[in-house]
């Protein structure tokens, strides 16, 4: 269990950055926003690091911070993340095939309420079981299940007929 020192923080963050970036990218769908999300998360983590030895499962704790940062961002905008944390935002590189499909889906997902977005991404893109998603979001498993259903219903409604040109058309 980490003891709260800077060296342990560095070791921890270096070991987790790839995974955090991936989750952040799946949550927001934008590489640069994903880096902002992770930057904000590891900044918050450093603020609390001196008391980290009191945390039982640090990975789950950090995962929760990342998702909450994402949800905060959806509610409040990005200004706080950029405070002293300045990743650049060059034009994204042209993605390979499937770009249109992804764009349609991402646009639709972004219209689903943020809590439901997080549930859908964690469950179906991060392949997390309901119990883990419930723990990360601080909600009951029943709530996660109902938010899954509501989120999928909303997503299908937003996609309308376009759903037939995407996967999962049943």
């Amino acid at each position, binding site marked *: 269990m980490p*003891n709260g*020192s*800077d*060296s*342990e*923080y*560095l070791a921890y*963050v270096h070991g987790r950055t790839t995974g955090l*970036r*991936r989750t952040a*990218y*799946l949550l927001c*769908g934008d*590489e*640069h926003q*994903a*880096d902002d999300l*992770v*930057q904000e998360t*590891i*900044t*918050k*983590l*450093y*603020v609390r*690091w001196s008391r980290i030895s009191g945390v039982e499962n640090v990975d789950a704790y950090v995962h929760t911070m990342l998702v909450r940062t994402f949800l905060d961002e959806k509610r409040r905008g*990005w*200004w706080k993340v*950029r*405070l*002293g*944390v*300045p*990743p*650049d*935002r*060059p*034009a*994204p*590189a042209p993605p390979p095939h*499937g770009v249109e*499909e*992804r764009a349609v*889906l*991402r646009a639709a*997902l972004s219209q689903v309420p943020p809590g439901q977005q997080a549930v*859908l*991404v964690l*469950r*179906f*893109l991060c392949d997390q079981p309901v119990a883990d998603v419930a723990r990360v979001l601080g909600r009951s498993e029943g709530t996660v*299940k109902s938010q899954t*259903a*509501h989120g*999928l219903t909303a*997503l299908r409604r937003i996609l309308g007929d376009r*759903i037939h040109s*995407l*996967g*999962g058309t049943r």
Partner: protein
Amino acid sequence: MSSSPDLDDLDAGALLSPLAGEPKGPSRIDVARAMAEGRRRRRTRWWTSGVAVVALTATSAAGGTLAFSAVGRPTPAPPRPIASPAPSITVAAPPAGPRDCTVTRLPTDGIRKAVVTGGDSSGQWQIGQTYPPGRGQSLVVWKDGELVDEIKINGSNPSLQDINSRGDVVAVVDERPYAYSAGRTTRLAGGAGSTAAINDAGVVVGALGSGSGNRPVRWSSVTARPQSLPTPAGSGPGVAVDVDEAGNVLGAIDIEGRQSTGYLWLADGTARQMPMPEMDGRRADMFWPAAIRNGWVVGQGAVGTPDPTALAFFRYQIATNRYERLPTASGDPTRVAANGWVLGQAELPVITNAAGATTVLPKYPKAKGRQDYIVASYSDDGLVAAGYAVGSDIQNQPLLWRCR
């Protein structure tokens, strides 16, 4: 809602599968900056924690009521005379101070995003980093408002820490202390650690080790062996945070349950813990130092350990061993000039002159939305400041303020 959740889940996985994937570009995550920003937030947690907590804290810190802006930061109540152990200060006094302050954006060779991380005592030099698209970060030096150098040091998480009036720079790269002068990079002796400041005589201060093993050190030159700065028996980790031209070193060490409280290693060879300032009729539990210049120290007093319940801003003079409480409108003090004027961060950068009167520096005119300012450089004459703006509708903008 589907009556067949398992099938629904399978469908959902297939439906969302085009969104799966990994970020492909290089990571722009900056761990050193996360730590620096984290340290700043630890000191200013009262500004960003829940509003109810902030209200309690700020009210008690200011001895009066505060309004809150949309960003959750306390907006100071109208200035009022503040009792202090130093000669009494009235905020409304009309003293000598900065006049006709203007702001300009430092050039970045077309790069849209950049920050200032330090500057020298003459106000001529500033250091920082730009964020060229696709190239991570670039370490840069400005002189007289012009971009004059790009510093290349191989390694992760590079950060320029300070520059003196000869243009000598100290840096941290790969969690190790570095120096740079006229195109040449030197790794300072001592292993893992960090630099914090360099004075015009070339004395560098900082820390070796990391985290709970941090100890404050001084290098008499960038090629010298590090000298440990002595700390009292039983004290915890510590760092040197700044050095003035006389060679007085300001540090922050954990001692007797006080976290990162002020400590002085004076040029005459003596060392002592800084006394605690008075805050609203009681003695502060900690003093968090920010900067030293010409025998002046600025920082924050904190009541409550380990998590403070009240903070206040102070200016301390080594010669008199006395604190003077700064008005809330001074903002969080970050730098001090040789004449004792203080550069602070409130909603905008603020200069507080010798008599305690505050001058708010102008905003970056292109920012229209919410914005915040980080200041990192202040000249000895108190007339040149540098830092950067962050905002909801702007990239980070490196800024230089000049007054008369």
